C-alpha cells in the first residue's frame, strides 16, 4: 500500500511476538522443560540416571518424529490432522508385512512417503484446505491399518526392538536421538539455502513464486519430509511396543500439533523452530509422567496436554494484545 497513513507502524501479527527474538521462542519452552525435569527429578531421584532417563523418555522417540512431521507441514502454513492414524498404519505394516516380506514392507513404506508428497501436490494444485484433505486422509490411513492388521497383534522384525533397545555410550538413546534430530532439523530448515525457500513459502508464497521457485516442488518436499518422519515415528513406536495396533497412533495428532506450537511455532506465516519442536514434544510427554508421579490419574493426560496448548496460545495472544 503506497503512502498508507501510519507508514512506519510497528509490525503486526505473529511477528510482534517474534520481535523478542527467536532465542526466546526456543528459550521459553526450554526453561519450561528444565522446570518439569527438575520437578520430576525431585520427586523421583532415580529418574536422574542413564536408565532412569531411558525409561522416562522412551516414548519421546515416536513423539519427536511425529512432531517433526507436523512441523514440516505447519512450515508451509498447512496442518496435518492425519499424522496419528498414519503412524498407526506404519505400526501395523511394521508388525506384519515388514517382518514377513521385508522387501514388500520397505516398498510399502516408500509408497506411503510418496503418497504424502502426492497429498501435498493435491493440496497445492487443487487449492484445497489441508485441514480437510489430511482429515480425510486420516480415515484412509485408519482403514488401511485395519485392513493390514484387523486386530492387535503381529510382531516386528527382530532388528527393530533391538535397535530401540540399543544403549549408546554416554547419552540414553532418546536423548541422543532428540539432540541429533533437533540438529538435523535446524540444519535442513534453518541453515540450508533451500530451507530458506521452504520457510519463505509459509511467509509469502507469492514472493517465492515471483522469485521463480516452484511452490509445488516446495510443498511436495515438505510433505515428503513429513511422510518420512511419520514412517520413522511409526517404526520407533513398533520397536517400543513390539506389536501392531491400528489405533495406537491416534494420540500423536494432538501431541505433534501441540509440540510444534509449544515449541515456538505458529500456525501461520512459516514460523517454525525445529529445536523448539523437539523440546515441545518432550514437554507434552513429560506432562503425562509428571501426572503419574503426582499420583493423578493418567486419564487426565489428554486434558492436560490440550490444556498446555490452550494456555500457550492464550499467553501468546495476550502478549500480542498488550503490545498493541
Amino acid at each position, binding site marked *: *500500500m*503506497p*503512502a*498508507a*497513513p501510519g*507508514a*512506519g*507502524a*510497528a*509490525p503486526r*501479527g*505473529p*511477528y*510482534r511476538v*517474534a*520481535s523478542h527474538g527467536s532465542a526466546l521462542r526456543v528459550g521459553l519452552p526450554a526453561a519450561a522443560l528444565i522446570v518439569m525435569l527438575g520437578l520430576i527429578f525431585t520427586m523421583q531421584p532415580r529418574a536422574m540416571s542413564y536408565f532412569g532417563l531411558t525409561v522416562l523418555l522412551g516414548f519421546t522417540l515416536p513423539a519427536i518424529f511425529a512432531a517433526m512431521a507436523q512441523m514440516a507441514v505447519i512450515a508451509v502454513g498447512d496442518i496435518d490432522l492425519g499424522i496419528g492414524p498414519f503412524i498407526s498404519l506404519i505400526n501395523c505394516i511394521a508388525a506384519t508385512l515388514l517382518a514377513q516380506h521385508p522387501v514388500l514392507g520397505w516398498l510399502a513404506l516408500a509408497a506411503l512417503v510418496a503418497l504424502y508428497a502426492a497429498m501435498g501436490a493435491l493440496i497445492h494444485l487443487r487449492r484445497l484446505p489441508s485441514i480437510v484433505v489430511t482429515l480425510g486422509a486420516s480415515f484412509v490411513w485408519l482403514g488401511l491399518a485395519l485392513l493390514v492388521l484387523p486386530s492387535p497383534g503381529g510382531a516386528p522384525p527382530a532388528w527393530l526392538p533391538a535397535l530401540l533397545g540399543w544403549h549408546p555410550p554416554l547419552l540414553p538413546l532418546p536423548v541422543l536421538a532428540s539432540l541429533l534430530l533437533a540438529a538435523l532439523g535446524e540444519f535442513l530448515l534453518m*541453515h540450508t*539455502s*533451500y530451507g*530458506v*525457500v521452504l*520457510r*519463505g513459502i*509459509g*511467509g*509469502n508464497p*507469492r*514472493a*517465492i*513464486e*515471483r*522469485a*521463480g*521457485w516452484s511452490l509445488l516442488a516446495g510443498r511436495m518436499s515438505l510433505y515428503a519430509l513429513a511422510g518420512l518422519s511419520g514412517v520413522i515415528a511409526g517404526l520407533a513406536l513398533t520397536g517400543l511396543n513390539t506389536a501392531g495396533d491400528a489405533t495406537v497412533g491416534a494420540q500423536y495428532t494432538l501431541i505433534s500439533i501441540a509440540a510444534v506450537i509449544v515449541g515456538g511455532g505458529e500456525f501461520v*506465516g*512459516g*514460523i517454525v523452530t525445529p529445536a523448539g519442536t523437539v523440546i515441545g514434544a518432550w514437554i507434552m510427554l513429560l506432562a503425562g509422567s509428571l501426572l503419574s508421579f503426582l499420583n493423578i490419574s493418567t486419564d487426565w493426560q489428554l486434558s492436560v496436554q490440550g490444556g498446555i496448548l490452550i494456555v500457550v496460545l492464550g499467553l501468546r495472544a495476550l502478549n500480542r494484545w498488550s503490545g498493541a
Partner: protein
Amino acid sequence: MTEQASEALVQLPFDQLPYVQLLGIRKSFGAVRALAGVDLAIPSGRMISVVGHNGAGKSTLMQILAGTLAPDAGTIRVGGHEVGAGYGVRRAGALGIRCVFQELSLCPNLSAEENTRVVHPALAGPGWRRRARRLIGAALDAIFPGHGIDTRRPVGFLPIGQRQMVETARAFTETDRPVRLVILDEPTASLDATAAEQLLRYTAEARARGVAVVFISHRLPEILGHADEIFVMRDGQVVGSEEAGALDEQQLVEMMGVVRAVEPTPKASAQAERGEIRVEQQARPDAPVPVRLRAGEVVGLAGLAGHGQRALLQAVFDAAHHRRAQLRVAGSVAYVSGDRRTEGIFPLWSVGLNTTIGNLRRLARLGWLSAAREAALAEEWRTRLDIRTPDIGRPIMSLSGGNQQKVLVARAFAAEADIILFDDPLRGVDVATKRELYQHVRRAADAGRAFLWYTTENSELVNCDRVYVFYRGAITDEIAHAELSDERVIRASFGTGQTVGV
C-alpha cells in the same frame, strides 16, 4: 582481438540500442483491455518514468516487463534479442531485469539476507548465508548510508520503511548476472524524505554504470527532477513521451488527462441540497476538507488507488455501528465490494440467497425465514436490475462477472440501507452493465439513498453530485458536479491541486 577492443564492443550497444524494447504489447483481462498496443524503449543508463492515472495500464505493463504476466500479443526484445513465449521471472532475472513491486514481495518470516537468497539461485551451498549478508549489506550501505538495518532479523519486524529499503536494495544486488534494468514501482511511497532522496541519488550512480531504471511514482516533482525521459500512459496506450527537462507539472497533468467526448451527464439531484445529513466528519488539521454526505446524494471518492478512499469507507461502515468522535453517521449502511471473490459473494449459494442475505431480519418472522418472501424479494430485484439468469435458484457462479456484481448491488439495495458504500464495485464490469447500474444508482439516490462511491475510473465520476479527491490519506480537493474535469481530478490525485472547499 585485444581486451580493450572487445570491451568496446560490449560497451557499444549501451548507448545506441535500447536494452529493452516493447513492441505492440497487448493485454486484456476478460472484457477489460488493459494494454492496447504499447511501444516502449528503455535504453541502458537512462531512467525513464511511466506516468498515468488509475487504469492507464502502468502496473500491467511493468508486470509484463518483469515476466510475471504474459502479454496477449506483441514482442519483447531484451539486449537486441527477441524473447519468446518462455519469458518469465526466472528468464527476466537471468537477463538482469529486476522489479521492486508495489506491494512488498519480501517474506516477513525471513531475514534480509534470507530474502536476498530467495531471489538469487546462485546463493546456495556452503557459506551462502555469509555471502548473502555481505551482498545485501553492501547494497544497503551503498543506497541508504546509515540505514541501521540488522540484516539478520526477520524483515516482518522491521518498520515498513526499512522493509522497503531492503526490498529496493535487494533489487540492486548482483551475483552471477549483472543487473541491467531495475523497475521501481512506487519505491518512495513508504520511505521518509531522506531515504527517498538517497535512493534517487543512487539511481544516478546506477545509471552511470549502464543500468537502466524504470521509475514509477505518484510524486510528480520526483519524476520531473530525476527521470531522463517521461512516458505518459492513458487508456492502455503510451500517448506521449518527453525529455523530463522539457516539462513542468502543469503540462504533465494535462498529458495524463483525457479530452472525452461529451456524454449525456445525469443532472445532479435537486434533493441533494436539502437532504438529511447522513455522514458528517469533523474538520481536523490533518483533514482540512471534512466529508459530508446528504440523503439523495451521490458522492464520489477519487484519486490514485490506495490513498485513503477505502479507509474512509471502512470508517463510515464502522461508525454506523459504533460511535466515533470524528465521524457521525446517521442511518443504516450497506457495503458493496469490488473484490467480489474474496469479500462479496457466497460462491456456493444461489443467486437468490446471495441477494437476500443482507435483509434477513426483515424477511424473518419470529426468527423463522419465509422462503416464499425471500424468493419474492430476490425475484423483484432480479427484474429490477435485470440480472440475467433464468432462475434465481441457479448457483451464483453460473453468472457472468458483471451479473455477479449486479447481485451484490441488488443485495445492498434490497437491504434498504440509507447509505450505500461502493468500494469500486464496477471494476472489470462490461460497459453495458455499467450504464444500467449508473441509472439504478441515480434512481435510488432520487428515492433518498445516499452513496459514497470509491472508483478508480475517472469516467465514472460524472455520475456523482460531488467528488472528493484523495492524496496520501487526505482529501486534496472537493469538486462539484458542474466543475468536474479530468484535469482537476488528476492534478489533485498527484497532490498538486490547491486544497479547496466548495
